[in-house]
């Protein structure tokens, strides 16, 4: 715990993140290149879906990252409320736009996969609707952070909202089991093992790893930007406080 706390010190975070960010970025690019080759060239078409199954290799990782990003934010929210760590809110705030982007991608790629397979772009079933709710929650959180002038107050309110909204994550995961949905049930993360053929599972796993590395790189970089933003704001306040007052005093009553 002491080591984690030490690495999470903002000054030390800026130092070690600058060192590992290039490696994570290169690793993400290489993994993505391999994943794209496996997805678009090496993997076979599905016997029922044809080549449209290739949409799975970008849709499923985006959906996993949409939820994983919220999981990171929920952990950060606990860090804000329980341990009051200054980097926890930085982490949550940096993750929110990335999570919103992945959720948008999950919805969009799902829609363009749904049209040729289901015959419709959209259906109000439990899985699709709960992911749409997740997207709206990301946008709401971004708006909330912008609505407050005081970052400390915004951090507490956002942390509470993140934790309340966390109830949506198991709903998304289990919606296909709890309700009768047009969306298929889980085929990778199952108690009895994946039901998907290895020739399609491996490209999916590689793409999922690539998306996770992209998220890690983006999150680290966005956290660095957020730390610089907050330090600049603090410096601005210090400059304003030291400036001689130019306010006009009301004239004394005679």
């Amino acid at each position, binding site marked *: 715990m002491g080591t984690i706390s030490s690495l*999470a*010190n*903002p*000054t*030390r975070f800026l130092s070690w993140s600058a060192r590992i960010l290039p490696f994570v970025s290169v690793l993400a690019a290489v993994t993505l290149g391999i994943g794209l080759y496996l997805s*678009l060239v090496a993997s076979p*078409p599905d016997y029922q879906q*044809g*080549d*449209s199954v*290739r*949409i799975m290799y*970008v*849709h499923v990782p*985006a959906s996993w990252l949409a939820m994983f990003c919220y999981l990171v934010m929920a952990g950060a929210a606990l860090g804000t409320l329980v341990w009051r*760590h*200054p*980097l926890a809110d*930085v982490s949550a705030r940096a993750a929110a*736009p*990335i999570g919103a*982007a992945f959720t*948008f*991608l999950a919805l*969009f*790629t799902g829609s*363009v*996969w749904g*049209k*040729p397979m289901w015959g419709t772009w959209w259906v109000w079933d439990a899985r699709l609707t709960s992911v749409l709710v997740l997207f709206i929650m990301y946008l709401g959180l971004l708006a909330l952070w912008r609505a407050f002038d005081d970052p400390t107050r915004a951090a507490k309110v956002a942390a509470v909202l993140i934790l309340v909204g966390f109830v949506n994550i198991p709903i998304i995961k289990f919606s296909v089991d709890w309700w009768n949905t047009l969306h298929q049930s889980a085929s990778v993360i199952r108690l009895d093992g994946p039901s998907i053929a290895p020739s399609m599972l491996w490209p999916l796993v590689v793409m999922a790893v690539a998306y996770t590395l*992209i998220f890690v790189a*983006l999150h680290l*970089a*966005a956290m*660095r*930007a*957020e*730390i*610089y*933003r*907050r*330090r*600049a704001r*603090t*410096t*601005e306040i*210090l*400059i304003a406080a*030291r400036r001689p007052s130019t306010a006009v005093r009301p004239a004394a009553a005679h």
Partner: protein
Amino acid sequence: MTHLPFILAAYGASALVLIGLIVWVVADTRIQKRRLNELEKAGPRRRRSTTQGL
């Protein structure tokens, strides 16, 4: 390749969004770092601390 327009739309949108995110994060980092450097030159120096403050 069957369903090519749908596949292109999915991969194209993914590429656009991910490249957009990368460009935005890199640009934001540079802007905030430059802003902080300019403010530190103009105003009081922040203490070089190893404390947990931002």
